[in-house]
């Protein structure tokens, strides 16, 4: 279970995603509120600076001529730090006084450094230019207060957001871990139920959470569902077992009575032959019944817990050897093609796989034409093991290939040959149980049945 708690799984967990999502929303709200406050405060500060600039010009307006004004400006310039307050007067003859130089650029006065004074403000200036006493007076206030305002707001944003982001991410990760473990418990239980272990339940520590939260409720519901399912399956098993018992016991009696009857009749009499035929028919009925029950049991989720590694190569060797003589007696041939020395192992039930292969071979012997030429082939490809049984007989028309997999379905021309129409249905049930893909195809001529297993 711990293997599942990797980093990706933590990030995929609901609590952490929720925590991070919530933090995103908080951040957005914070950004908007602080943004509005910042914009409002900034514009009022700018207004204040501009008003201040206008008021400052009042001092200079009293000077009537350029000389007086340049004296006042020089005095002001010496008293001011150009990085806070810039002041310059351009006389009508073009000379300049002040703590900065000003240059005319595109009809605007631009502030530049005066080498006798301290450097300029790095933040730029709010400037006010006015024609005065025949020249131009330029005064500027540093933008530094605005820059300070910006950095203060950024600091507020960072100091209020980063700690809460860290705290909530940590909480989210912790809650995610916790939930992840419980979700894993739910997932494990679901997996087990899917694989047919109906006795699987969600552990108590997940179901009986102190807070009775959503996961605990889901766990409890899952357990209730599994209980119902188990009870239903048990009831169904009981019913089918009862039917099996109720029908097989009379069948047993019929067989017994028929064999007793046969013994009482004189040999080579017609009555004895009838009794023998009746016995055979009773056996056929039992065979159909047996196969139907078996298919139902396999499809009803015969537990895979008994699965073990099976060497399909060895099994196919045994079974083809068993049927080789039968094919030869029928005037045909049966051969096995398999890669030498390759591992052809699948996870499965040897008995069922053997039954499956023997059904396929028997089918081919019966329906593969007058001299059945049968090839059993095993191919190992990447992570698949493919088993195919091919004959050179009349084959199965494409439209009927799905139908022949149905229980008791028989092709029109096969009605006279022995068989109960359950062989392929059983093959399909066994393939399904082993997660193998079953396909019927054309062998040009003949039928090819392919079963594609996941390799071990």
């Amino acid at each position, binding site marked *: 279970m711990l293997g599942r708690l990797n980093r990706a799984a933590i990030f995929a967990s609901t609590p952490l995603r929720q925590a991070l999502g919530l933090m995103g929303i908080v951040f957005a709200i914070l950004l908007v509120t602080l943004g509005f406050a910042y914009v409002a405060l900034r514009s009022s500060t700018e207004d204040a600076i501009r008003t201040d600039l206008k008021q400052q010009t009042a001092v200079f307006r009293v000077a009537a001529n350029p000389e007086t004004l340049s004296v006042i400006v020089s005095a002001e310039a010496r008293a001011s730090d150009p990085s806070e307050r810039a002041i310059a007067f351009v006389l009508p003859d073009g000379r300049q006084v002040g703590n900065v130089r000003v240059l005319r650029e595109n009809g605007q006065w631009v502030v530049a450094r005066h080498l006798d004074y301290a450097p300029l403000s790095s933040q730029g200036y709010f400037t006010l230019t006015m024609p005065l006493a025949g020249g131009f007076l330029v005064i500027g206030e540093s933008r530094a207060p605005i820059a300070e305002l910006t950095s203060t707001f950024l600091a507020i944003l960072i100091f209020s957001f980063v700690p809460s982001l860290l705290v909530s991410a940590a909480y989210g990760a912790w809650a995610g871990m916790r939930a992840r473990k419980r979700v894993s418990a739910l997932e494990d239980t679901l997996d087990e139920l899917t694989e047919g272990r109906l006795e699987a339940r969600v552990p108590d520590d997940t179901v009986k959470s102190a807070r009775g939260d959503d996961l605990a409720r889901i766990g409890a519901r899952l357990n209730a569902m599994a209980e119902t399912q188990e009870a239903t399956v048990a009831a169904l098993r009981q019913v089918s*077992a009862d039917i*099996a*018992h109720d*029908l*097989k*016991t009379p*069948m*047993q*009696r*019929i*067989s*017994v*009575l028929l*064999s*007793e009857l046969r013994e009482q009749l004189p040999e080579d009499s017609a009555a004895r032959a009838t009794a023998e035929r009746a016995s055979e028919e*009773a056996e056929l009925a*039992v*065979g159909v019944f*047996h196969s139907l*029950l*078996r298919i139902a*049991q*396999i499809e009803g989720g*015969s*537990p895979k817990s*008994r699965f073990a590694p099976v060497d399909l190569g060895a099994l196919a060797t*045994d*079974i083809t*050897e*068993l*049927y080789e*003589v*039968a094919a030869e*007696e029928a005037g045909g041939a049966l051969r096995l093609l398999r890669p030498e020395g390759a591992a052809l192992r699948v996870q499965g*039930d*040897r*008995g*069922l796989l*053997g*039954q499956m292969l*023997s*059904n396929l071979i*028997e089918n081919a*012997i*019966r329906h593969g034409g007058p001299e059945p030429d049968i090839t059993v082939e095993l191919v190992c490809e990447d992570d698949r093991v493919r088993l195919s049984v091919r004959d050179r007989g009349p084959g199965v028309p494409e439209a009927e290939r799905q139908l022949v997999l149905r229980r008791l379905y028989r092709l029109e021309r096969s009605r006279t040959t*022995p*068989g*109960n129409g359950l*062989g392929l249905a059983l093959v399909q049930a066994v393939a399904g149980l082993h997660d193998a893909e079953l396909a019927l195809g054309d062998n040009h001529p003949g039928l090819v049945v392919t079963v594609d297993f996941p390799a071990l």
Partner: protein
Amino acid sequence: MKLLLIEDDATTVDYVTRGLREEGHGVDHLANGREGLSQALTGEYDVMIVDRMLPELDGLSIVRAVRAAKVATPIIFLTAIGGVDDRIEGLNSGADDYLVKPFAFGELSARIAALARRPQAQSEQVVLEAADLKMDLITRKVTRAGQEIDLLPREFALLEFLLRRKGRVQTRTMLLEGVWDLNFDPQTNVVETHISRLRNKVDKPFERELIHTVRGAGYRIDG
């Protein structure tokens, strides 16, 4: 042999007990699970035959209880179900063999005989014999009346299986299980085909037939 039969169906009981007594066995019969268990725990038997579905106590519980009480008597489980799980469940509970209803009496009789002699180890035997047929397990040579018979490996295994159980009937399913290690019912008569091939080599060229067909049951080699 002394046998215990726990089975509630009167017709099956009648059929089985009559057949077994004809073969010279002593048969005790009980139709009730609870009584059957107490008899199984107190009596001395060579083989027990237990039905799966019984009134009061089911067969599976009986087998488990008998094994829990450290009674090692071989048990044949009779069942009407015969599904994939049932067979394994039956064997896992401690039964030694398993027979699905309806069964031929010959099958039951052959399996009782096989179980009763199971512990006998024959591994030290180097040469198996039946009349003038000799099988050397070391050189893997088979001769009859001094004449060498050439057998394929599986024919050899089949003959060896029959010779080791000389005088006892081996049914088709027993041969499939023992010689091919396969646990299912083939629809066609594959075992018969193998037997007839073997006969062609072992019996046909000679006067006396050694491999006998037992009607409704299986095959047997006589000594």
